[in-house]
C-alpha cells in the first residue's frame, strides 16, 4: 500500500496534513485529514475576568481576529445581561462587513481563484495572486490592495486599533462614529460594491464561460449531499452578525431553526481515535461516519451552505446573483425565494463572491442608517441583570463561530468552550478530500495537476488550520509525499504556498 501525504504546513509541528493511502492496485484505500489544535486554551482563560475575552480571543487566529472579537463581545452581552443599543449592533456589524469584504476578497484572489484564473494545471509557482494579476491585468493587483486598505482603515478606527479590535464591550461599543467617518464608510461601501460586481463578472468570464472549468465545477468529483447550516435574520435570510441558526436537509427541507444559545441540543461531537480534533455533527440525525445523505448528521457551515439555508439574499444585487447561481445549477425553487440546495462544493467559490457583494451592500445600508452617528452606543450593564453565562455566535467567513463563557458571581471565568468555523466542516472536508482522491488518483504516482485537484477539494472550504507555521529557509509550505506500504519515500514535491 502506498501513502501520499499532502502537508500544507510542516509535519514536525503536528499541523494540518492530508494522508492518502493507496491499495496495491493504485486506487485510494483511505484518506485522513488532520487539523491541529492549540493546547491549553481553556486553562489559559479560566480564572481571568470575562471582559478580557474579546481581546484574548482575537489573538487566537491571525486570520479572523474580528470574528472572535465580535463573538466574544456578544457572549459578554449574555454574561452581563446587557442588551446592546441599536446603534451599537449596527457599528459592530459595519466592522464585521468590512472584515468580510477583506477576507473574501483575499481568499478569491490569492487562494481559491488562482486555480481557475491561472488554471488548475498551471505550475504552482504561477498559481498564485501574481499569476492572477498577470492573467487578468496588473491593475487587479492594485484593486485588491486598495480594497484591503480602505476596509482595514474602517476596521482600525471603528475597532479602536489596527488588526486586533478593542472596541467591543458588554452592552455595546466603546465609541460612536463622526459624520466624517460615516461618509468614509459610505464611500468605502460603494467602492466595495463595484469591486464585488467586478469580481463576479470576472468569475463569470473566466469560470462559467469556460466549458472545461464549468464541467469541473459541476462534476461529481466535488459533490456531497449533506445538511447545510447558516445564520438567518427574522426573514430567514442570511446574516453574518446575528440571528437564528438554520439547518436544511440535503433536499432543502427545513430541519431546524434555533437560537445559537441552544447549540448543545443540536450539535454533538464525535471523537475518533486517530485525530485529536472532534467531528461535530447534528445530534438529532446522529453520527453515521464520514458519509453523506439525509441519514448522516454531517453538515457544512460555509458560504455555500449559508446561501442554501437562506430565503434569497437581503440585499438586491446579491439577491439577483443568488438567483442566477441557483438557476445556473438547474435548482428548482422550493419556497417563494429559496432553491434546492447546491451540493457541488466548488460552487462555494461562487457563493463566497455573492457574500462579498452582500457584505458590501449591507455595509452601505448601515452607513446610510439615520441613527448610525448616534452617541447611544452602550447600555451600561445593570448588576442586577448579571447572569454569569453567555453564548455569542456569528458567521465567520469559514463557518458558524460560537463562543460560550461561564463565570462565577464576580465575573471570573470558570468555563470556556468554542466551536470555530472550520471545525464545523471537519467531517465534510475529510469527505471531500477522500472523494476527490478516489475519483482522480488511479496510480501510485499521481502528477502535480492531479494532486492540485485533490487539494482544491479542501481549499474551497478555506480551512483555518490556526496560524500557519513553517520552516526556513528553503522549505516550502506544502509537501506532497508519496510513500510505499512500508513508509518508504517514493517521491516528494515541495512548493510555495
Amino acid at each position, binding site marked *: 500500500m502506498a501513502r501520499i501525504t499532502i502537508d500544507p504546513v510542516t509535519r514536525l509541528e503536528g499541523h494540518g496534513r492530508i494522508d492518502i493511502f493507496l491499495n496495491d492496485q493504485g486506487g485510494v484505500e483511505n484518506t485522513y485529514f488532520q487539523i491541529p489544535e492549540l493546547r491549553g486554551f481553556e486553562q489559559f482563560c479560566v480564572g481571568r475576568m470575562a471582559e478580557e475575552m474579546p481581546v484574548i480571543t482575537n489573538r487566537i487566529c491571525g486570520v479572523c481576529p474580528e470574528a472572535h472579537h465580535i463573538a466574544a463581545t456578544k457572549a459578554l452581552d449574555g454574561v452581563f445581561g446587557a442588551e446592546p443599543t441599536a446603534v451599537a449592533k449596527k457599528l459592530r456589524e459595519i466592522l464585521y462587513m468590512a472584515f468580510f469584504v477583506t477576507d473574501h476578497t483575499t481568499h478569491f484572489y490569492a487562494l481559491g481563484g488562482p486555480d481557475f484564473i491561472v488554471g488548475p494545471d498551471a505550475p504552482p509557482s504561477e498559481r498564485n495572486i501574481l499569476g492572477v494579476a498577470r492573467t487578468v491585468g496588473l491593475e487587479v493587483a492594485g484593486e485588491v490592495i486598495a480594497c484591503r486598505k480602505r476596509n482595514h482603515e474602517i476596521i482600525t478606527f471603528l475597532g479602536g486599533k489596527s488588526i486586533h479590535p478593542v472596541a467591543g464591550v458588554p452592552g455595546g461599543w466603546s465609541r460612536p462614529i463622526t459624520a466624517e467617518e460615516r461618509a468614509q464608510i459610505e464611500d468605502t461601501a460603494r467602492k466595495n460594491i463595484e469591486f464585488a460586481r467586478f469580481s463576479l463578472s470576472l468569475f463569470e468570464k473566466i469560470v462559467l464561460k469556460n466549458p472545461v472549468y464549468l464541467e469541473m465545477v459541476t462534476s461529481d468529483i466535488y459533490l456531497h449531499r449533506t445538511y447545510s447550516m447558516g445564520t438567518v435574520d427574522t426573514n430567514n435570510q442570511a446574516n453574518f452578525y446575528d440571528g437564528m441558526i438554520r439547518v436544511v436537509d440535503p433536499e432543502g427541507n427545513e430541519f431546524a431553526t434555533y437560537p445559537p444559545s441552544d447549540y448543545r441540543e443540536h450539535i454533538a461531537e464525535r471523537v475518533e481515535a486517530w485525530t485529536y480534533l472532534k467531528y461535530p455533527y447534528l445530534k438529532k440525525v446522529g453520527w453515521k461516519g464520514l458519509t453523506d445523505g439525509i441519514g448522516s448528521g454531517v453538515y457544512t457551515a460555509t458560504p455555500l451552505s449559508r446561501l442554501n439555508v437562506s430565503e434569497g439574499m437581503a440585499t438586491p444585487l446579491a439577491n439577483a446573483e443568488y438567483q442566477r447561481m441557483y438557476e445556473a445549477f438547474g435548482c428548482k425553487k422550493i419556497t417563494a425565494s429559496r432553491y434546492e440546495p447546491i451540493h457541488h462544493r466548488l460552487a462555494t467559490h461562487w457563493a463566497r463572491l455573492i457574500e462579498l457583494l452582500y457584505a458590501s451592500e449591507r455595509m452601505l445600508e448601515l452607513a446610510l442608517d439615520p441613527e448610525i452617528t448616534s452617541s447611544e452606543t452602550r447600555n451600561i450593564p445593570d448588576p442586577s441583570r448579571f447572569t454569569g453565562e453567555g453564548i455569542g455566535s456569528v458567521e465567520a467567513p469559514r463557518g458558524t463561530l460560537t463562543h460560550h463563557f461561564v463565570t462565577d458571581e464576580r465575573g471570573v471565568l470558570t468555563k470556556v468552550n468554542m466551536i470555530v468555523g472550520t471545525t464545523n466542516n471537519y467531517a465534510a472536508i475529510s469527505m471531500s478530500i477522500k472523494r476527490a482522491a478516489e475519483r482522480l488518483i488511479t496510480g501510485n504516482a499521481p502528477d502535480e495537476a492531479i494532486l492540485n485537484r485533490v487539494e482544491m477539494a479542501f481549499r474551497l472550504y478555506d480551512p483555518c488550520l490556526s496560524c500557519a507555521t513553517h520552516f526556513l529557509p528553503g522549505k516550502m509550505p506544502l509537501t506532497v509525499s508519496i510513500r510505499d506500504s512500508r513508509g518508504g519515500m517514493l517521491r516528494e514535491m515541495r512548493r510555495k*504556498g
Partner: protein
Amino acid sequence: MKASVYGGTVIIGMGNPQLSDDGVGLAVAMAVAERLRQHMTLTVTELNTGGIRLMEAMAGFKRAVVVDAMLSGAPPGTVQRFDPKDFVTTKNTFSSHDTDFATAYDLGRMAGVSLPEQVSFWGIEAREFDLFGERFTAEVAAAVPVAVERIVAQITEWEGGA
C-alpha cells in the same frame, strides 16, 4: 501610502503573545524600540499573520525590521538574521490564507505600493509554540537581550550609513 508620509524605520514584531515562545518577536521589537526611541523615529507594529498583511505593514517606510519566532531545527534560543534574497519564511511570515512574504512583496511592487529599500528578518528559534501561555521558555528568554543587541546594532549601522 507614500514614503514621505511615514519614512523612517518600522519594527514589526510577529507572533502571538499568548502562545508561549511564539510571542518572542514582539517582545524583542518592543525592547528594541525602547532602546532606540530617543535617538530616532521608530514605529513598532504587532502582527500575527504574515503574507500580504506583512507587506502592507511595511508600506510607506524606508526601512523595515521583522522579528519572529522560527522553527528551523536549530537549538532553541538561536538568533539568526536573514536577508530577503536568501530568505523564505519564519514561523509567521507565511499566511496559509493568502501567500508567502516573497509573493506578497512582489504583489506590492506590482501594485505600486511604496516598499522599504532595506528589509531585514530576524528569527529566534522557539521551543514551545502551540501551548497557550504568556511566558517564554528559559532558552528563548535568554535570547531576547542577544537579539535586541544585534538588532540595535544593525539599525544603528543603517542609520549611520543613511
